[in-house]
């Protein structure tokens, strides 16, 4: 397994490198951070001087060579929006809040999706199943910006149970985490349900039933573990999508100043360096998560060959 992980890490490096270069090219093609850094009344000479001071007056190939040279040393440049700070340090300032949000959101998702899926799978087509499946579909098809505003209106404006903005998790993090979790619960519980139905129709479950094993043990120990592989695959995907996309929306709606919030600000201000650093760090996390998921397969099903 060690060799496997080493190989995957190697591949991951290529992915991270590729993504970072892609972002370099895209940002250089579309933007000019100097336009947003300086006050409106700054003169053209002042703008040119700033571009020169930042090395943005050099040709794109020259900038690219410099970029690669710095990238090797993990120097992704200074943010142009959060002034005087390396882009990576800005990312690490804001990342913890995003990890808290995704962590709590995914905790909700796991804790709720498994029992709901199992419950629905017990009598496929029954009333419980139909109600839960319909609810799941509603949850997974609701866009988060809409869901977020509905939650805000209900729980922050009307009931005043929660607050927006940065603050303690009990008052400020639960609602955005729920907003992040609800669509995931919908998708995950459907997977739990269908994998459980498949598992419950297999020979080994029938044998277990025949020999008088309790329903609880069949479900909890055998079927659920085997249903775990598609579940873990989807859960990994949910975490990745949350980190690399959904949090931008959820953090903006709830004013939670995490990395998604900062990503939006960086794009608005065409802060190349910060955009690059955010994508870089997210890419590293995604690569590591994918390796973790593969390892989880092996743990769940020792027959999986990681070679």
């Amino acid at each position, binding site marked *: 397994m060690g060799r496997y992980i080493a190989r995957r890490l190697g591949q991951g490096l290529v992915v991270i490198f590729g993504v970072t270069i892609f972002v370099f090219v895209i940002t250089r093609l579309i933007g000019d951070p100097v336009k947003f850094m300086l006050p409106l*009344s*700054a003169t053209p000479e002042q703008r040119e001087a700033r571009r020169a001071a930042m090395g943005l007056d050099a040709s794109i190939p020259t900038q690219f060579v410099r970029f690669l040279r710095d990238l090797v040393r993990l120097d992704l440049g200074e943010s142009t929006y*959060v*002034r*005087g700070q390396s882009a990576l340090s800005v990312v690490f300032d*804001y990342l913890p809040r995003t990890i808290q949000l995704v962590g709590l959101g995914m905790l909700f998702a796991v804790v709720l999706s498994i029992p709901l899926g199992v419950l629905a799978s017990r009598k496929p087509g029954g009333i419980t199943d139909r109600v839960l499946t319909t609810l799941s579909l509603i949850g997974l098809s609701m866009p988060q910006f809409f869901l977020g505003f509905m939650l805000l209106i209900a729980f922050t404006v009307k009931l005043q149970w929660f607050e927006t*903005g*940065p603050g303690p998790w009990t008052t400020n993090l639960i609602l955005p985490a729920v907003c992040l979790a609800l669509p995931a619960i919908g998708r995950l519980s459907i997977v739990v349900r269908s994998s459980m139905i498949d598992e419950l129709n297999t020979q080994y479950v029938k044998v277990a039933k025949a020999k008088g094993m309790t329903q609880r043990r069949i479900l909890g120990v055998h079927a659920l573990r085997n249903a775990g592989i598609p579940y873990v695959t989807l859960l990994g995907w949910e975490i990745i999508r949350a980190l690399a996309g959904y949090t931008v929306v959820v953090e903006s709606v709830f004013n939670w100043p995490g990395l998604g919030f900062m990503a939006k600000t960086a794009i608005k201000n065409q802060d190349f360096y910060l955009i690059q650093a955010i994508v870089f760090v997210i890419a590293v996390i995604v690569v590591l998560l994918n390796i973790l998921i593969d390892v989880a397969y092996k743990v769940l099903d020792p027959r999986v060959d990681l070679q």
Partner: protein
Amino acid sequence: MRWTFVSTLSRGNDLKKRYRILGALVSLSVVVAACGSDDKGSSDTTSQGGGAAVEGAEITIALGSEPTSLDPHIVDDGAERAINDNIYETLLSRDAAGVLQPGLATALPTQIDDVTWQFKLHEDVKFHDGSAFDSASVVASVNRIVKLVADAKTDNDGFYKTLTGATAVDATTVNITTDGPDGVLPARMYWLKMIPTAAETSEDLSEALVGTGPYKFVSRTVGSDIKIEANADYWGDAPSISKVTFEFVAEGGTRLAGLKSGKYDLITNLPPQDVDQAPQPVDIQGQEHPVLILDTDEGITADPNVRLALNLAVDKQAIIDQVFGGFAVADAAQILSPSVLGFNSDLTPVAYDAEKAKQLITDAGLEGATIQLVGEAGRWLNDREVLEAVAGYWTAAGLKVQLDILEFGAYLDVLFDRESRADAIFVSSSNDILDPDRQLSTYYQAGGIGSSNTNEELSALIDEGRQQLDPAARQATYEKAVKIAADGSYFVWLASNSDLYGLSERMSWTPRVDSKLLVKEMSVTS
């Protein structure tokens, strides 16, 4: 210097009714950009608290954005100033009406020669770290900014590019020199924050906030808040508020909700449509002037009669009432506020005359001609509504209006395009240091980055005004300059929208024309 106090608060109730009918005109979300207009302000209305000031009170202020740096010299950012204006001080200050006053200097500077200004400093002033404030600190502060300008590391070139250095005459006397006669220098010294001598070579002072001001930096939580507390050793009058938390709340609705619930004592950028919801709204005519820059050289706007028609066609009062909820003052055919040197009090707003506008367009044979109007949405208060209203008025005058509301980056490309000027470009011009030079050289002077005229006489006057050292002479020069633009209808002047703040019931504070949030001027009543 002249200024007028215009009370607009009484219009709040009227506003309520109007909004029921005309609510659609004003969008629900009012987003005002952080750097352009976050820290404006000044007011005609003094807030009323009941009872005596509470000593040692703690307050919370909600700002619309987080400072992009805490270095007092690097960025041009209203959120940074909101914090640092309380921590650092400058050689000169301004009273609430904008008139220059001594600050760390004991008096206004005296001129040694055309390029040298001498400042006498207060004795016994100490920085928060205990080091003395003296002529060496002034030299360090000036040297640092000169170097930052030379290295293109500060966004504030516009304020300091004429400075060449400073020399200490004795411990409390310092000479500051400029690259030529510079009448703006006193105003610049109202802006340049004084740092300790040891900080001169620092790359970034964001982590070491050491000033002479009435408040000391306490802590910062990135993304969340900054706390400051009263400086017990402050050389001036001790402030009554002892602790301040600045929170960063991007969403206007959240700021208002926090104000209503008592979480915040002061919120910035209160939207006019929310005034009647705030416990204690205060407003003042600040420095914000939304205008349309007309191309005087090419296209249909090259005809002065057409430019006049474009002015006559716009009902400013309707925009004031319906877009700004009454919280605006019609511009007297200039982008300067009455609180700024150079304001020409002989000029009056161009009166609304739809008939005459239509006639002028017809006479010019331009009925049905296309005029391009370029703007953006979201950076300035109700900008989209202003643009749509203007487009409507111009259409009524007989023109076909091509209204381009662009993404901000694309909009800047149009504003900065020196090769070909759009017929009309929307911009909201502001003035930080309350000196006309930068505002006029940007929008009035030929070649200025937002200017669409090539009038050499006007350009020469703006250069002259900068180089004159006597304020009265400058006043006369600028009055002439703004009159040329007014007579030639170089712009469509609209209305200066007021700075609006929401205060909690217990707060007592009068907003300032320079929009500074000076906590030492605030108090809490029991």
